[in-house]
């Protein structure tokens, strides 16, 4: 269970948001909405622990996330604006490396299956440098087929994807949530993800 209490974010001397709080239980989906620059990405980074909140705190199963960081991080998958891919490594190598870094031993077969699931198996042996923006995004998202974590925090996961991939990803998110996982998303697109409990958090100035 992820609980955020009274979060406030200060960037430079601008207060982006304050008093943001929510509770997310197993099987829950949280949409974070707001216009550009309203602090959606900052909020997600804060929930991951990459950014220290100005006020308030984030709790995972009743403990502050910094207190038991190892436990929290082994349950967390975060994908920000940046894909975390290395230009000189192939799509497959990138995917396997990132999975291992997250603590999942991904065999070549498993990684290939993940790439196939999101429809870019034919790019598996190409270096990430030659892939298009959308293809890179899909390689990064393929990690979600390997992840064994319960909390997914995804920043604009549908951006740069084609219609078919949006569908595939939405289905995967639905599966994850149905299995008792949790997801937090920001998106500007109108995508339906099936979830038992859907919440919406709107950030406004």
């Amino acid at each position, binding site marked *: 269970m992820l609980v955020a209490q009274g979060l406030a974010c200060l960037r430079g001397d601008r207060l982006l948001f304050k008093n943001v709080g929510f509770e997310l239980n197993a099987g829950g989906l949280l949409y974070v909405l707001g216009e550009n620059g309203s602090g959606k990405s900052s909020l997600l980074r804060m929930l*991951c*622990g*990459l*950014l*220290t909140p100005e006020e308030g705190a984030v709790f995972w199963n009743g403990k502050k996330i910094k207190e038991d960081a*190892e436990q929290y*991080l*082994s349950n*967390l998958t*975060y994908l*920000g*604006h*940046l*894909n*975390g*891919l*290395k*230009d*000189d*490594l192939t799509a497959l*190598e990138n995917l396997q*490396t*990132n999975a*291992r*870094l*997250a*603590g999942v*031993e991904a065999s070549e077969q498993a990684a290939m299956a993940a790439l196939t699931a999101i429809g870019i198996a034919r790019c598996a042996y190409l*270096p990430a440098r030659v892939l298009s923006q959308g293809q890179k995004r899909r390689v990064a998202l393929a990690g979600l087929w390997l992840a064994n974590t319960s909390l997914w925090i995804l920043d604009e996961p549908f951006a740069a994807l084609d219609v078919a991939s949006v569908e595939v990803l939405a289905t995967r998110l639905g599966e994850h949530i149905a299995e008792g996982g949790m997801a937090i998303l920001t998106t500007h697109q109108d995508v339906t993800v099936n979830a038992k409990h859907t919440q919406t958090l709107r950030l406004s100035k």
Partner: protein
Amino acid sequence: MNGAWLTVLTRDLLQAYRRRSDIATTLFFFVIVSSLFPLGVGSDSAILSTIAPGVLWVAALLAGMISLSRLFAADFADGALEQMLLSPQPLSLLVSAKILAHWLVCGLPVVLLAPMIGLQYALPSEAIGILVVSLLLGTPALSLIGAIGAALTLGARGSGLLVALLVLPLYIPVLIFGSLAVSASQHGMSPQAHLSLLAAISLLAVVLAPLATAAALRISVE
């Protein structure tokens, strides 16, 4: 061996292998800088062998430093650093793998090339041996201390120059003991005390630098 540690090490080495020109730049820099001195100073072997320890060590310092700004910059730009920060493994452990990769790619080749450069300076074979040993003991400290500077200046404008200003003063002890070890052996004295001190600096850096670098990275990523 820890899986994530090995993953980071192999990823960095694989990248370096696929971008061999970057390594070549560092090495050519070392070769050219250290070859300029004999050309400029003249062929008096007495003068050359006197200045050799200092010049070679300074060239090694500078060669190690020009590649420092790349240590975390690419990871920062493409998001790999965020993922390292969010790995359940301790960040200092992953950082130590990156530093080891940096040393293997930028430090070790300099150590291996040093004997050839030493010949240009008319160094006796015994002094060349000590030069190699001193570089072998000292260059890890350069990578380790440099990583702290690279992490602190991450994302700052003009970080290449900033890292030099930050790190070069910290390199002074390594430079002093490294070059003194070589000149001691040239004068028939035992270089052992200097080499021990170099090893001590490196060992201390192995323990402390990854922790300091990890802390600096957390601040830079915010």
